C-alpha cells in the first residue's frame, strides 16, 4: 500500500541536496542576458558569498554522476564567480522533453508585463474566480495591498492616464500616488503631469515628486469636501429626499436596513444602494430563507419604493422580452454586472429570464416565486 503522497515523497528521497558545480552540464539556453543595471552578476555573487545560495538550482540526472541544469543558470554563474565548488540543488527525474516543457511555460510567464496588462489579467482571473479575492491571493501568493494597487490601475483619473499614454511612467506606486492626489486636489495633479512633461525626469524622481504632492494634498483641508459643503447647503431638499421618505414610513425603513449582509466590503466602495434596491435585497434574501414571509415583506414596502421596484423589474422583463437571442443578452448583463449571484443581480436576471419563459406579464410575486424555487 502506498499513497500518492508517499509516491511523490519517494521521488524526492535519496536525492542529493548539494552537488559539485563541476558535475553540472549547462545547455545553451534561450535566456542570453544575465545582468542588467539593477541585477549584476557580481552583486549576486557578493550576496552568495555572504549568505550562500538561498534558492537551490534545479538539475536533471544524466547518469554517471553528471547532471544537466534545468533552472538557475544565473545562480550557477554567480556561485562560480563567488568561488563556490558545491551548490545546493533539487533533482528532477524529468525527461528532456518535460524539462523543456517546464522551461517553455516558465519563460512565457516571466516576460515582463506592463502594469496595466497585468492588472487587466488580474481582473480577468478575479472574474473567473467569481470575484473571490482570497482565492486569487492564494493563487498568486501576493498580499491584499499589492492586488488593490494593481486593480486600481484600471480605474485611473485622466492625469495618471496621461502619464501612461505619453510614455512618462508606468510605475505602479507613482500612478497610485497621482490617483490619490487627483481625488484630493485635481489641480495639483494637473501641475504634476505638466511638470513631468516639461522636465522629463527619471522614474525615481517622478515617484518622489508624486509622493510629496500626495502628502501635501493630504495635509491640507480636503478641498473637494470644502467645495461641496457650501452649495450642499442650498440643495439640501433634493439630496435628502430619500432619507425624508424613509422617515415617513419608519416600518418599511426598518425592514430594508434589517436585511444585513449587503455585499462584502470590497476595496472599491460600491455606490450606495437606492431604497428600492435595498428592498430587493431584503426580499431576495427573505425568499431564499425557508419560512420567511415575502408577501408580508412586500406589503410593508412604501408606495413610492414599490413603484420604483416595479419599474426596475419591468425594465429587465422588457429587456428579456426584446432579446431574441438569450445567450448574448445574458452575457451582456453579466459583463455589465447587472446579472450575477448578489441579490439585486439575481433579481434582475430572474426578471429578464421570466420574459423568456413565455410569461405574459411581469409581477414581482412571479419573480420572487422563481427565485424561491431556484433556492430550494
Amino acid at each position, binding site marked *: 500500500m*502506498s499513497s*500518492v503522497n*508517499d509516491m511523490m515523497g519517494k521521488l524526492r528521497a535519496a536525492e542529493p541536496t548539494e552537488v559539485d558545480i563541476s558535475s553540472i552540464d549547462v545547455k545553451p539556453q534561450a535566456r542570453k542576458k544575465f545582468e542588467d543595471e539593477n541585477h549584476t552578476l557580481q552583486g549576486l555573487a557578493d550576496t552568495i558569498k555572504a549568505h550562500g545560495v538561498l534558492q537551490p538550482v534545479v538539475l536533471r540526472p544524466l547518469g554517471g554522476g553528471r547532471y544537466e541544469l534545468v533552472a538557475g543558470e544565473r545562480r550557477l554563474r554567480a556561485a562560480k564567480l563567488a568561488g563556490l565548488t558545491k551548490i545546493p540543488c533539487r533533482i528532477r527525474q524529468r525527461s528532456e522533453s518535460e524539462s523543456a*516543457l517546464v522551461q517553455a511555460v516558465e519563460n*512565457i510567464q516571466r516576460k515582463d508585463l506592463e502594469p496595466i496588462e497585468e492588472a487587466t489579467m488580474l481582473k480577468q482571473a478575479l472574474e473567473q474566480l467569481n470575484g473571490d479575492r482570497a482565492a486569487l491571493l492564494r493563487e498568486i501568493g501576493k498580499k491584499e495591498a499589492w492586488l488593490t494597487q494593481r486593480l486600481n490601475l484600471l480605474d485611473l483619473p485622466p492625469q495618471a492616464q496621461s502619464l501612461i499614454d505619453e510614455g512618462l511612467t508606468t510605475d505602479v506606486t507613482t500612478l497610485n500616488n497621482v490617483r490619490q492626489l487627483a481625488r484630493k486636489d485635481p489641480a495639483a495633479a494637473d501641475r504634476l503631469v505638466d511638470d513631468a512633461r516639461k522636465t522629463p525626469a527619471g522614474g525615481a524622481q517622478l515617484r518622489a515628486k508624486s509622493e510629496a504632492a500626495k502628502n501635501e494634498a493630504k495635509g491640507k483641508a480636503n478641498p473637494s469636501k470644502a467645495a461641496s459643503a457650501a452649495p450642499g447647503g442650498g440643495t439640501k431638499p433634493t439630496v435628502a429626499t430619500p432619507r425624508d421618505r424613509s422617515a415617513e414610513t419608519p416600518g418599511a425603513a426598518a425592514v430594508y436596513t434589517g436585511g444585513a449582509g449587503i455585499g462584502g466590503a470590497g476595496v472599491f466602495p460600491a455606490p450606495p444602494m437606492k431604497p428600492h434596491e435595498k428592498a430587493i435585497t431584503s426580499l431576495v434574501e427573505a425568499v431564499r430563507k425557508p419560512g420567511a414571509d415575502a408577501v408580508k415583506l412586500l406589503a410593508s414596502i412604501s408606495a413610492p419604493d414599490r413603484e420604483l421596484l416595479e419599474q426596475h423589474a419591468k425594465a429587465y422583463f422588457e429587456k428579456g422580452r426584446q432579446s431574441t437571442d438569450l445567450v448574448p443578452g445574458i452575457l451582456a448583463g453579466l459583463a455589465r454586472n447587472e446579472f450575477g449571484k448578489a441579490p439585486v443581480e439575481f433579481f434582475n436576471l430572474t426578471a429578464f429570464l421570466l420574459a423568456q419563459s413565455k410569461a405574459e406579464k411581469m409581477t414581482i410575486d412571479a419573480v420572487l416565486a422563481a427565485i424561491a424555487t431556484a433556492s430550494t
Partner: protein
Amino acid sequence: MKTLTVANQKGGVGKTTLTVHSGYAAAGANLRVLMVDFDPQASLSLGFNIVQPNPEYLTSADLFSHDPVTKKPQPYDGNIDIIPADERLFDLISASTDDAIRARTALRAIGKARKYDLCIIDTPPERNLLLVAALAIADFVVIPMTLGLYEQGGVERLIETIEGTRMALNPSLTTLGIQLMKTNSKSAREREQVQAMRDQFPEYVLKQELTELASVRQAVNNRLPVWHNPRGSSHEKAAKEWRLATAHILNEVTR
C-alpha cells in the same frame, strides 16, 4: 490498445473538450475507441449524454474493485464505447497506488478482449489517486493549456506528478506535449508569447493551437464535434483547427 490520458492539474483549460474531440476524431478514422471518465465531476460522461450511469454497464469505479469485472463498457455510437464516472469515484480519490495498478490490469484486459484500438482517459484537475491511475495506465499524456497568468503552476505540478508516476508505476509513459487552448489571435501580447514559446521549444508545443471561438462551446452544448456541419467562416475555422489538432495527436499516439 494504445492509451492516451488528457491531463492538467488546473481546471477550466478545456480538458474534457479535447478528450471528447480526440474520441470523435479517432472514431471518424475508423478506430474502435474506449472513452474513460476518471473525473468524479463526470464532465466526460455528461459530454456523452450519461447523466446517471446505467447499472447494466461498467463504470470507471468498477475498474478499481477487487471483484472480477463482468460488465461491459456502454456503447455510445458506432465506434465509441464509454466507461462513465459514478459517485463511487469520490471514494477513490485517496486510494492507494495498488488500486491504480488494479485498474490498469482491468482496463488492459477489457481492451484486449474487446479489441479496442484506442483508449482515451479524462482526468480530475488535481493531484489525486485518480489522476495518478490515469497516468499509470497511459502510454501517452497530452497537456491542454491556456495562456492565463497562472498556468505555470498547473503544468509544473502535473509534470512532477508525471515524473513520480513514471518512476513508481509506469516507466513507459511518454509526454506528447502542450496543446494550446482557447488562444486569442487578436491579442498581440499572446501572439508574442506563443511565438517565443515555439521559437525556443518547437517540439514541445503542439503545432496546431485552438482558438477561443463560440462555435466550440456551441458544439459542446449540442454534443457534436465542432467539425459537424460547420456553418459560417468562424465555425469553419474552428472545425479546421480541431480536425488538425486531433489528427496530430492521434498520429503521434497510433504510429
